[in-house]
């Protein structure tokens, strides 16, 4: 390990580190524009100059490898003069339009100009003018401001895996753009806005909405997919204005998907802000008391077996605990959280978790994807797979759709036949998997939400066992969920009890008139027409499919409007905080259920959040408190006959990445994105 001295402080750094990293380890801050620890090194902004003894001139520390006995100075008159010079050059062509720039207040250039800029310009000539680029509905460009750090280019090429941005032209004429104008086709493109150190790339939907110092920041958890990305919710007054990623190395590093970031404008549209009830076939506004009374009237005298509940994909753990308890109190075992009908075996926790963990992907050395398109189902997780693939020697096999996943893979087949080939050893890819030390098998919901789902699940487990993916030290069986609520629901047993009905049974029961009352907790993704003549209570936040069918609507809170708990696909328990209050009369969901329970004569035992959480901990004992990751202790697989496979091809459950949930479906931005994907030319021509 090389040792060097930075401003008199001795540091020891790993070999191959750069001088900039060494300076950081010594606690010295080095200004930078192009360097970013998650991107390749470009060394083109020169802001990070430091002085190195025995070197004839200042060096760009970000691109300079350390060597033993170096003596580095980060704060000498030479260094300061050099950085001032760089800053002056950077500002020559920069429009200095901070007052009308959205980056103002959180701009690296602005901040560093405070340290190294002059109070006036010596440049009297014309500045260059660059045409703004059209990059689609999410990113607004103002290319005069670009300082050519190429972070965005490197992000698109390396992390997002869509090499569409480039630096064309040269010298004075260099421009960042796509050359042939088109919208970026990445699900992660919003991260470029965060990366851009200046205001060249800013958020289009958020343009001129607020200044950063006006915002209140709240830590939250993204509920638009099952990755559980850590987010920062920025709000002003009653409204969430934007969502940004928070750093969590184990989950989302510092990225979030475009859906997580940009569906916020759906939060103010199509909201259910008061209770409604159906009268004479028409919905009319009602009071909470009326709504509860209507439910109680319908429920009175009903046997538990005629009542059912389905939990939706964004529900928080607390509300599902309350609903589960309410149903139990009403004597009903007809509850299910798998509104897509996935055949999940919840008898053991590692049957339904992403056991290798997301960070663990980087330890894996081979992967098999079954019936999943992680790019659409879990965009941020997909970027980990790509990161691992870029590092080399990571053979990937795909059974399912042969989509562009941003990394190379071997397509083994469309459907279960390829799985059978792996089971009976006739597929050559089996050897690749067997040769791997830490192989991963990733099963998507598309492979499970079908009649032979249980068989696919068992087959996938068998493959994992056969290739040695299950050991004390490594758990290579992974289920990739698409719903933020799912793992938590499975953990607390939001599943049919006794001889209760599951999702299919509930729907069939409604059709046949065996189930009379259905409580939908934000469940919008079921075929509503199959609910027959059942009395539907819809508890949720958006006027989506469920609300349309409902007989009583109980307005709830969206994921940013409540203190809630979500477990991501790894089984990681994370809590988000309330950023704003739910609109109008809407309430936090567990509280609604608690209030309803009193009217229904089945009063729940808790009446505060701590109480619900204690109840959750009791229900999920051994699951909610289990550590994330770890090896596989028991090789015995899920129930299901791995031979009973059907023949039809696997399809990803996510057809339209941008509109998988009621918030996304209400969001004009997401609609614009979906339209762009459908017809890229049309938008580029605008």
């Amino acid at each position, binding site marked *: 390990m090389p040792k060097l001295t930075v401003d008199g402080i001795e540091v020891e750094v790993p070999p191959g580190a750069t001088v900039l990293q060494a300076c950081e380890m010594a606690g010295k801050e080095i200004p930078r524009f192009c360097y970013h620890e998650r991107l390749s090194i470009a060394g083109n902004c020169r802001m990070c100059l430091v002085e190195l003894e025995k070197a004839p001139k200042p060096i760009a520390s970000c691109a300079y490898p350390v060597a033993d006995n170096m003596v580095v100075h980060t704060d000498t008159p030479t260094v300061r003069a050099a950085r001032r010079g760089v800053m002056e050059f950077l500002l020559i062509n920069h429009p200095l339009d901070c007052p009308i720039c959205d980056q103002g207040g959180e701009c690296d250039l602005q901040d560093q100009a405070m340290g190294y800029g002059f109070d006036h310009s010596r440049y009297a000539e014309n500045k260059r003018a660059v045409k703004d680029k059209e990059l689609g509905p999410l990113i607004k460009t103002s290319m005069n401001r670009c300082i050519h750090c190429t972070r965005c280019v490197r992000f698109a090429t390396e992390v997002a895996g869509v090499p569409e941005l*480039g630096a064309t032209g040269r010298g004075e004429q260099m421009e960042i753009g796509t050359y042939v104008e088109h919208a970026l086709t990445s699900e992660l493109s919003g991260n470029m806005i965060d990366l851009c150190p200046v205001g060249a790339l800013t958020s289009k939907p958020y343009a001129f909405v607020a200044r950063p110092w006006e915002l209140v920041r709240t830590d939250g958890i993204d509920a638009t997919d099952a990755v559980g990305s850590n987010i920062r919710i920025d709000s002003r007054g009653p409204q969430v204005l934007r969502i940004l990623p928070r750093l969590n190395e184990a989950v989302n590093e510092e990225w979030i998907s475009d859906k997580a970031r940009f569906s916020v404008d759906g939060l103010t549209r199509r909201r259910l802000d008061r209770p409604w009830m159906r009268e004479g076939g028409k919905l009319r506004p009602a009071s909470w008391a009326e709504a509860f009374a209507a439910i109680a009237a319908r429920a009175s005298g009903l046997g538990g077996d005629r009542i059912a509940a389905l939990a939706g994909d964004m529900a928080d753990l607390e509300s599902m605990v309350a609903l589960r308890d309410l149903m139990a109190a009403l004597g009903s075992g007809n509850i299910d959280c798998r509104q897509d009908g996935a055949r999940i075996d919840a008898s053991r926790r590692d049957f339904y978790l992403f056991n290798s963990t997301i960070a663990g992907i980087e330890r894996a050395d081979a992967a098999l994807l079954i019936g999943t398109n992680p790019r659409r189902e879990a965009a941020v997780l997909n970027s980990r797979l790509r990161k691992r693939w870029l590092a080399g020697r990571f053979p990937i096999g795909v059974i399912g759709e042969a989509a562009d996943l941003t990394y190379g893979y071997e397509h083994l087949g469309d459907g279960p036949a390829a799985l059978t080939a792996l089971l009976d050893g006739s597929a050559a890819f089996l050897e690749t998997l067997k040769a791997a030390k830490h192989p991963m098998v990733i099963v998507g919901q598309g492979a499970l939400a079908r009649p032979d789902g249980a068989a696919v699940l068992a087959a996938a487990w068998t493959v994992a066992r056969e290739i040695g993916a299950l050991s004390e030290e490594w758990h290579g069986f992974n289920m990739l969920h698409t719903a933020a609520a799912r793992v938590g629901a499975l953990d607390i047993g939001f599943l049919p009890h006794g001889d209760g009905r599951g999702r299919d049974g509930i729907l069939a029961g409604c059709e046949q008139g065996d189930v009379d009352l259905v409580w939908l907790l934000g469940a919008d993704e079921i075929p509503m027409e199959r609910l027959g003549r059942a009395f539907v209570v819809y508890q949720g936040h958006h006027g989506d499919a469920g609300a349309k069918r409902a007989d009583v609507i109980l307005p709830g809170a969206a994921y940013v409007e409540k203190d809630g708990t979500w477990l991501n696909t790894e089984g990681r328990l994370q809590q988000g905080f309330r950023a704003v209050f739910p609109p109008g009369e809407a309430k936090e969901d567990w509280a609604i259920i608690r209030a309803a329970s009193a009217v229904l004569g089945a009063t729940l035992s808790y009446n505060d959040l701590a109480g619900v959480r204690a109840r959750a901990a009791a229900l999920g004992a051994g699951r909610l408190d289990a550590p994330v990751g770890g090896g596989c202790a028991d090789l015995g697989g899920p129930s299901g006959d791995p031979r009973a496979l059907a023949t039809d091809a696997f399809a990803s459950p996510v057809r339209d990445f941008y509109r998988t949930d009621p918030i996304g479906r209400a969001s004009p931005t997401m609609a614009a994105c979906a339209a762009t994907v459908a017809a890229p030319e049309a938008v580029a021509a605008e």
Partner: protein
Amino acid sequence: MTDRASPAAAYEGGPDNFAFSEATRKLAEKQIAKYPEGKQASAVKGLLDLAMRQMEDETGSRWLPRAAMDHVAGILGMAPIRVYEVASFYTMFKTRPVGRHHLQVCTTTPCWLRGSDAVLAACRRAAGNVPDGTVSEDGEFSVEEVECLGACVNAPVLWVGDYFYEDLDGQATERILEALKRGEHPAPGSAKGRQTSAPEGGPTTLKEVPPHQPYRPDPPAPEPAAPQADAGE
């Protein structure tokens, strides 16, 4: 200022399709074979040049439409944007149509001092005074000012196709352009008839043949002294 299109945006008027001809493909394979396996992208500049030349054969204009860049990207397995970056970086790749003869006039200081203004004016006149970078109405000429062509000794210099025309003045330029227009191939090189870049009016030094110096090989290395038997005499 003329309304010059940014080199950073694609020219949209090109052909929709482009593919290497059999002959070009063979040349391209040679280029690609120069680089080790996995580094084929290094051949991108060679292939782009081939593409421009094929365009010249097919259309009379040596330029690089987007379809050609995409074709090269496909052959080399590169993302198209990486090819656009290369093509737009080097000024020798013309990403917009040029005339049958693209006149590149050097106007850097040495050429300018030696009268490149007259050369440029003659070229512009021949092109019907259309703005630089656009093609004359008859499709014959397009004009572009370029930086030093590295032939300053023979300034001013005009570069057409694969040839340099040197030591020009207005009239010499006009003669060359007329010949080009007639489809002839005027002789490249100095318009003043000098031999390459040798002094005007003949040599000024080394005028006589220096006296013949016969080639003398190095004297043979001295033989190692033979032991003398009678040394002890």
